[in-house]
């Protein structure tokens, strides 16, 4: 809508936009800025977080990387958690997409009744709070002695991801005309060849969008990773939660602040690069159910 608006309405619109942007983004900027201060500045009066007066007095500079050093120290081992997160998310996304692409294609191309029944069941699975599933895993995993291992958490995250992934991939495959499959098969491809050489090349945007959401689910997960991973294999989010309990004891809250900023940074970059895909993905779910 690019019609001219009365001035009062324009002022209202831009005023609200500025306010909203501040509400949404400012807390993150504030914490990033504060992560480069010492504790008495960040957790002191807010003016001190702006000016960094204690940091200046102690270090002769407005900024210090003390919090980050504490987080990545041998004692806190946040670096290890960063590595674990990379392993868990990369594996989860790769396996989720492979399974989900194949499954989504099958569901998009089948008109059989059982295909719809499966989709409905997947919808029910998708709605279940993750913790209810975790309470199904815990006892068996303990009794089989495989609790705490990275691959277990990866498989569980992949499975939890599947209902969402197949629904989303299906809606992308629905936009690829069936004639494309048929022409490939007439040209002598079998179904798998046709899928790989003809359908997939036009599907990459859908794969990237779905992959982004698989990534976010694995990266942001707290429930599964904190319940199923041992201390040594744990990822960033549960590790941050662990810092909270210990922070008061050793007076080292800045390590938690630095860890929070470290965990946010990749998401900033992600949104910056893939903003369009994220928006289209969020809406795909809305339109298609």
């Amino acid at each position, binding site marked *: 809508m690019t019609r001219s608006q009365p001035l009062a309405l324009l002022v209202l619109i831009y005023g609200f936009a500025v306010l909203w942007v501040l509400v949404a983004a400012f807390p993150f900027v504030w914490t990033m800025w504060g992560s480069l201060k010492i504790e008495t500045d960040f957790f002191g009066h807010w003016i001190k977080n702006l000016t960094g007066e204690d940091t200046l007095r102690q270090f002769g500079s407005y900024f210090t990387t003390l919090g980050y050093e504490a987080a990545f120290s041998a004692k806190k081992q946040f670096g290890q958690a960063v590595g674990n997160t990379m392993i868990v998310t990369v594996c989860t996304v790769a396996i989720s997409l492979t399974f989900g692409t194949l499954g989504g294609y099958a569901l998009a191309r089948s008109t059989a009744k059982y295909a719809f029944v499966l989709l409905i069941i997947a919808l029910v699975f998708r709605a279940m709070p993750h913790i209810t599933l975790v309470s199904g*895993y815990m006892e068996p995993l303990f009794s089989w002695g495989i609790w705490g291992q990275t691959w277990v958490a990866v498989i569980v995250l992949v499975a939890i991801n599947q209902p969402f992934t197949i629904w989303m991939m299906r809606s992308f495959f629905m936009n690829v005309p069936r004639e494309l499959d048929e022409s490939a098969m007439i040209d002598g491809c079998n179904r798998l060849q046709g899928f790989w050489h003809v359908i997939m090349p036009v599907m990459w945007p859908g794969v990237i969008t779905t992959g982004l959401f698989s990534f976010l689910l694995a990266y942001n997960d707290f429930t599964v990773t904190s319940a199923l991973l041992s201390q040594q294999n744990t990822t960033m989010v549960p590790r941050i939660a662990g810092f909270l309990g210990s922070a008061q004891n050793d007076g080292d809250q800045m390590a938690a602040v630095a860890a929070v900023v470290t965990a946010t940074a990749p998401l900033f970059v992600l949104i910056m690069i893939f903003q369009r895909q994220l928006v289209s993905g969020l809406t795909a779910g809305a339109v298609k159910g």
Partner: protein
Amino acid sequence: MPHRAFFAFLMPSLLAMVLFILLPLISVGYQSLFSPPRDIEVLSEICSTNFLTGVRSCEQTVTIEKVEGPKIFRGLDFFCGRSVLACGELATGWSENKGGTGEYWSKVVLNLPLYKAMAFTMFYTLITTPFIIVLGLVVALVVDNLWRPLRGPTIFASLLPFIVTPLVGSLVLFWMTDNTGGLLYALTNTLAFWVDDFSLRASPQATWSVIAVYGIWHVTPFAFVVFYAGLQTVSQDQLEAAMIDGAPRFDRLRYVILPHLMPLITFVLLIHIMDAFRVLEPIFGFQAAANAQSVSYLIYEHLVLQADKRYGSAAATSVLTIVMVFILLLPVLIRTWRDFRVAAR
């Protein structure tokens, strides 16, 4: 698509879902009814005779003996346990209650963990939902009317609260609100000047409100994005027709735009209500466990936080949660099924 090809393509995904969603759901049901035999306390008496005095003395010790064996059917024991439906507590509370029904609710029912968590979930849903829908709509309309080059950066900022890890998001807000020098603390105390020293851990009400504010902040971007996409598909013809008819701005919004967005509003509403059962991270982020516990938090507590894991209670609570979510989901399932039938024809 032939049946064989269909199942060949779907097999990996299907297997993953059967093994790691369906079986766990069955496992939850089983665990809510069966549990391993309880360890028994064995009372043993060790007696000795003092050889100098000739007095015989005995000492009783209690040892805990692990009992091996098949799981035992517990009936509704776990469902009726204090931390779940608390049948016994409800009954005795009712018979001992001298005040009215109101007192029974406030003194007995709402002091029991699951009912308290349900109350929190309902409070959270009722408070946040209208804000999320209205704010999401307003932000969508505002962004839609911004100068085009400014829209991208605005959407970027808007996505942050929704995309960023919930634990991180809640911590970022918590640190600004909790300490007495914090910026949001100062702000709320200036705005709410009539409250002397507003602290979010002072009372359950304060804690509940802060988590609700977090919820609004976290979910509004999602509503905004969905509504914003919906606005792009509003029929321009209809809008122009309304303008030619001289419909004022507000009427155009009410009679053209809102009806068009209605299905999306229902969608956001539904997702949000189901997500209310998932609220977990903010309870840790805001260190709110003393005052606010969600349904998910209760299960998490039984499973992870307790040294002596209470699988039975966790499973029973999970079963109840699954049933509630399923009931909420039922209208959508029926509608989706109908859409399929129409599309298949």
